[in-house]
């Protein structure tokens, strides 16, 4: 498969790249690692007229620890750089586990964090060659008005398979987004939309510039579990990121986020509340896993059946909470 034609621009500064995006808007796509964008362009599902490479912009390529305890990661930082970073491993275990679970080492050497969080949603009727897609009616995603994944659906149900997204939501990260003359700081949870087509709140002339992780305090623990067909290369069939903080009285806060089962990562608020109220015990974990099943809402049969997804989420909640319980127990000793 070859790439379609496009104009290639490689601005040397952030200011210049924002100017280019303002001018080109919807016709342009931002390129960092290229492991998602170029694949979609080869399949012909994305056809930007202009590709703006942000690899040469120094401020997007660094990891820094701020005085207030925040860690700021530039959008072009590669997943390999994050996987090998000891500060990230120590402060944000869930995030590092998520990063290390992405595809393969080759891909991680190239792929950027910005790319992984903006990563296009996936559907087996959509991520196919043009020839394959042409054999069916156009779907919502390809400009038509049907959904092949769910007959009769009025929206696109493509799945958000980003591994870092659930971890960033669980750790309450913020995503810095810029367009010419304007900067927004969006909590990771609000960055995603439950829509297969417009799956993030990013406007066409905007780009992600950095990811900000709040200070990981000594009283909090986090973890990430990914289930996939093969450990290497494959997208998750389901994943979970979990974070908990403790104080003198017990569990003060819990965040549970299930990834790769819907068009947006699912934050399980009711399930987390149950753990906050009854603490992390074997009994409460069982009950939380049951609660998670019903809290997931409607699921689709895309890639795996809805029943499988629900069961997987239950198992993942149980495993993640048990891991957190053990980690908290160990930290107390």
């Amino acid at each position, binding site marked *: 498969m070859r790439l379609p034609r*496009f104009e290639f621009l490689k601005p040397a500064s952030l200011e210049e790249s924002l100017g280019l995006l303002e001018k080109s808007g919807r016709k342009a796509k931002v390129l960092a690692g290229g492991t998602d964008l170029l694949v979609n362009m080869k399949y012909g599902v994305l056809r930007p007229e202009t590709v703006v490479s942000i690899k040469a912009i120094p401020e997007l390529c660094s990891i820094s620890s701020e005085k207030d305890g925040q860690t700021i990661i530039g959008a072009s930082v590669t997943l390999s750089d994050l996987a090998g970073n000891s500060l990230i491993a120590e402060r944000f275990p869930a995030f590092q586990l998520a990063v290390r679970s992405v595809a*393969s080492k080759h*891909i991680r050497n*190239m792929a950027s964090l910005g790319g992984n969080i903006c990563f296009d949603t996936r559907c087996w009727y959509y991520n196919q060659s043009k020839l394959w897609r042409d054999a069916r009616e156009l779907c919502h995603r390809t400009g038509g008005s049907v959904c092949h994944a769910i007959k009769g659906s009025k929206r696109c149900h493509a799945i958000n398979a980003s591994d870092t997204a659930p971890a960033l939501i669980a750790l309450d990260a913020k995503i810095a987004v810029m367009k010419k003359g304007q900067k927004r700081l969006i909590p990771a949870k609000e960055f995603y939309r439950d829509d297969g087509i417009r799956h993030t709140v990013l406007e066409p002339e905007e780009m992600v510039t950095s990811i900000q992780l709040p200070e990981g305090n000594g009283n909090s623990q986090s973890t990430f579990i990914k289930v996939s067909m093969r450990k290497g290369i494959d997208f998750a069939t389901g994943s979970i990121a979990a974070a908990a903080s403790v104080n003198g009285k017990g569990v003060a806060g819990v965040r549970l986020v299930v990834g790769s089962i819907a068009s947006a990562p699912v934050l399980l608020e009711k399930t987390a509340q149950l753990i906050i109220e009854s603490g992390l015990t074997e009994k409460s974990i069982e009950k939380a896993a049951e609660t998670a099943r019903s809290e997931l809402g409607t699921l689709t049969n895309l890639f795996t059946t809805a029943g499988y997804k629900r069961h997987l989420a239950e198992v993942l909640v149980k495993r993640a909470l048990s891991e957190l319980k053990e980690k908290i127990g160990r930290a107390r000793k």
Partner: protein
Amino acid sequence: MKKILSLTVNGDTYEVAVSPWKTLLDVLRDNLGLMGTKRGCSIGTCGVCTVIIDGKAILSCLTLALECEGKAITTIEGISSEGSLHPVQKSFIENGAIQCGYCSPGIIMTAKALLDENPHPSDDEIKEALAGTFCRCTGHVKIMEAIKKVSQPAGEGASHAPGK
């Protein structure tokens, strides 16, 4: 519109006129005639197009040629010197880690990048590095063995040599 690109491959500098939509793989094979790097899936999952850029295993099918200006690129053609094979290549032959050979350049480059960074990797580290490559003829057992033989300290490998 083509742009003039200066590429450093295996220590040699080439000047090529390249369209923006050409990948590094296209340019290596079509412009420079370096056919050792193979074209497989084209979407980054098979690893046969692996080259080493600035010390890291990179997929040339998902790298735009224009992004490679000023970088040191090593392909399978560049790792043997004056007729003598690279130790990883030798080990692949000695341990029968080759069948049809299509995936070999990519896997050898992947192994070289791993061993340059970590001369004595554990089994898990080898598996992690190889996860982005595919051998469709047989399996990765012989390949693992070949890489392990190269990575063993001198003397230790000899005790596992065939016939002993």
